């Protein structure tokens, strides 16, 4: 068990000591960095490929159908077929595009998505670099994807793509703030921005129990950040607007696709690290626990996609600014109080306070909403009477 637990740590030591045999120290460091990067990228790519497969299987099962089951046993080679199809497609460039923006957008959306994995730990010694502002790093770098969306929308030279891109940007910006507040609640308790220390600083129970509001907000915002249903308005085809990635084909589209799934994985990883206890858990090695928790959150995301209809753009923004943000702020204040007062009972004070806050919030929402019986549309212009 201890061997398995420290598997990657031991591997690291093994390789670096072997390299030290014939390389100077800076060479060893450089080589280790290179190996880590390559290993991480390979892991991510395989994970994302099979994430698409898993999603289609889960969605299929929710809809009472089998999902991919043709390509290979149980359809396991489906991702290879998808990737191959995307790669061999002709990458057409429409005529009215702004070429530098158009070409940079897919690159700029994948790069930050991959970059955050430099600081995400999968186990106590399994993080490429453990900087002490890791959480800030993740949030900041993820925001660059917003710029890339706008570039994709604008560079396409298509009015509807621009509208779709702008909507996507509005959505992503709106959901970053409540996410930051949710994360802030955890940082208060664990006292550090470093992801490794956050996990280590957590008490024996998952913080989702002590800060359920933060957990729920984080879940919702993470789904919204990766443009997943029910927040996938920017990519919806049954709406009028075409979406920011319509003019992209082949490998360029694959980049957008890749970025979306990587962001899903990142979001799930952050929720697992901050609210579900990270890699902590009995018996099994830490990285296995981490993966279990991440996949649990991912399954939740697939479940949401298969069940809920889509929110309209004004409802989406309303949800974030009028509900999640105030809730997040109240949550931080209350959690700060509870933490400083050192109340006994583990997670119970936090849980109780959260239930009270949610009840109050629910009451406020109900008062603010008119009765559903008859709500007329905004008058707008009068109908021409025949």
């Amino acid at each position, binding site marked *: 068990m201890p061997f398995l637990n420290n598997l990657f740590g031991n591997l690291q030591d093994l390789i670096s000591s072997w390299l030290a045999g014939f390389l100077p120290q800076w060479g060893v460091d450089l080589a280790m960095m290179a190996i880590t990067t390559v290993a991480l990228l390979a892991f991510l790519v395989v994970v994302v490929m099979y994430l698409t497969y898993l999603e289609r299987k889960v*969605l299929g099962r*929710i*809809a*009472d*159908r089998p999902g991919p089951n043709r390509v290979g046993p149980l359809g396991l080679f489906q991702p290879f077929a998808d990737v191959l199809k995307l790669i061999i497609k002709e990458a057409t460039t429409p005529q009215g595009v702004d070429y530098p923006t158009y070409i940079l957008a897919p690159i700029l959306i994948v790069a930050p998505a991959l970059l955050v994995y430099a600081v995400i730990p999968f186990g106590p010694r399994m993080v490429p670099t453990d900087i002490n502002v890791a959480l800030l790093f993740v949030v900041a770098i993820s925001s660059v994807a917003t710029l890339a969306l706008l570039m994709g929308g604008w560079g396409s030279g298509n009015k509807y793509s621009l509208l779709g891109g702008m909507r996507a940007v509005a959505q992503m910006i709106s959901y970053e703030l409540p996410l930051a507040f949710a994360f802030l609640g955890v940082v208060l308790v664990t006292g550090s921005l470093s992801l490794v220390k956050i996990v280590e600083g957590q008490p024996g129970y998952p913080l989702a129990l002590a800060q359920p509001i933060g957990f729920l907000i984080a879940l919702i915002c993470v789904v919204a950040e990766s443009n997943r*249903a*029910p927040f*996938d308005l920017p990519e*919806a*085809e*049954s*709406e*009028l607007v075409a979406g920011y990635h319509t003019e992209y084909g082949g490998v360029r589209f694959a980049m957008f696709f890749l970025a979306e799934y990587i962001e899903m994985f990142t979001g799930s990883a952050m929720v697992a690290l901050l609210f579900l206890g990270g890699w902590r858990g009995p018996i099994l090695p830490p990285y296995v626990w981490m993966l279990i928790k991440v996949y649990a959150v991912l399954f939740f995301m697939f479940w949401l*996609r*298969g*069940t*809920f*209809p*889509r*929110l*309209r*753009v*004004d*409802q989406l923004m309303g949800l974030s600014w009028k509900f999640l943000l105030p809730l997040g702020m109240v949550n931080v204040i209350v959690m700060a109080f509870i933490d400083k007062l050192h109340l006994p009972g583990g997670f119970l004070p936090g849980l109780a306070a959260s239930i009270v806050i949610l009840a109050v919030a629910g009451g406020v929402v109900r008062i603010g909403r008119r009765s*559903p*019986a*008859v*709500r*007329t*549309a*905004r*008058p*707008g*212009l009068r*109908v021409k009477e025949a």
Partner: protein
Amino acid sequence: MLRTETLSINMGPQHPSTHGVFRMVLTLDGERVVDLVPHFGYLHRGIEKLAEGRTYLQNVPFTDRLDYISGMSNNLAYALAVEKLAGMGPMPERAEYLRVIMAELTRLANHCVAIGFLLNDLGAFFTPVLYCLRQREYIVDLFEMASGSRMTPSYIRPGGVAGDVPPEFLPAVRKLLAQMPSFIDQLDQLLTGNEILMARMQGVGVLPPERAVALGVTGPLLRASGVPYDVRTAEPYSVYGQLDFDVVTEQGQDAYARYLVRIGEMRQSVRILEQALARLPEGPVMAEGVKRIRPPAGEAYARIEAPKGELGFYLVSDGTPNPYRYHIRATSLANLGALRDMCIGHLVADVVIILGSIDITLGEVDR
């Protein structure tokens, strides 16, 4: 104030959510719809003209292809019109009960499709569609058993029905009816209380009752605006007069109310089916001597409560075996008259939902 221009946008005729080849030209002020002009006719096949060259019996297959989702109902409306025109007496009882059974099964199938595809437009990734289509599969299997064809049965004909149902039909219907209520409950549980669904459909596409009646709108659209008008009770045809059911009415006037009306109608259909099955008598299924239909000169108009609303056939005869004039009062055409009123003032995203809640089939609109 800023002087803004309105934007003209074209939706369709190829569009994933327009339920057929239907085109709308929207005039937008920002995101709000200021005007809507529907264009259809892409599926116009000239059925009314073609019918003048064929005998009354040969026109039955044309009726399947009107609202192709609910084939049996169209057959029934046409059969009633021809029977009225020809002055045929009462049909054999078994035929009448079989007609009612088929009509109500059609209503179930149609509402399954309507609800499923409305949710597809809302973005619920295919799950409700597939659940509803699975139920519809059971129903169209029954149609295939009875008539040989799933979607275009041509089963209900002037004089009765084409042939008696095979012996495995009735047990299969009973089996379906046993599990249908739990399916409707499942759908209800999944969808009716869903926050997002309610937020997207409540207050969307409001149609006040006086306007609905003035526009000649019928079916779930009318009943969701609070007008309890159902042809099955207003002018009972076939054996509906002897069956016990409620007319489902909602007061919400919006898309959500229409959805609720359809769910309610599905439950009522199950109720009607159970009664019809219990009372189904033995006997012939086709009236005597209905080989060559040559009605005396005159005209007749017969209407039924098709799943989408009131479907009427206006037939004029000049004593020959072919109809002199064959007109179809199309449900969806009349319901489309309300589209513009309902969409003005709403956002673009709502137009798709309103169209889905009206539930049109272009085969009927264009004929």
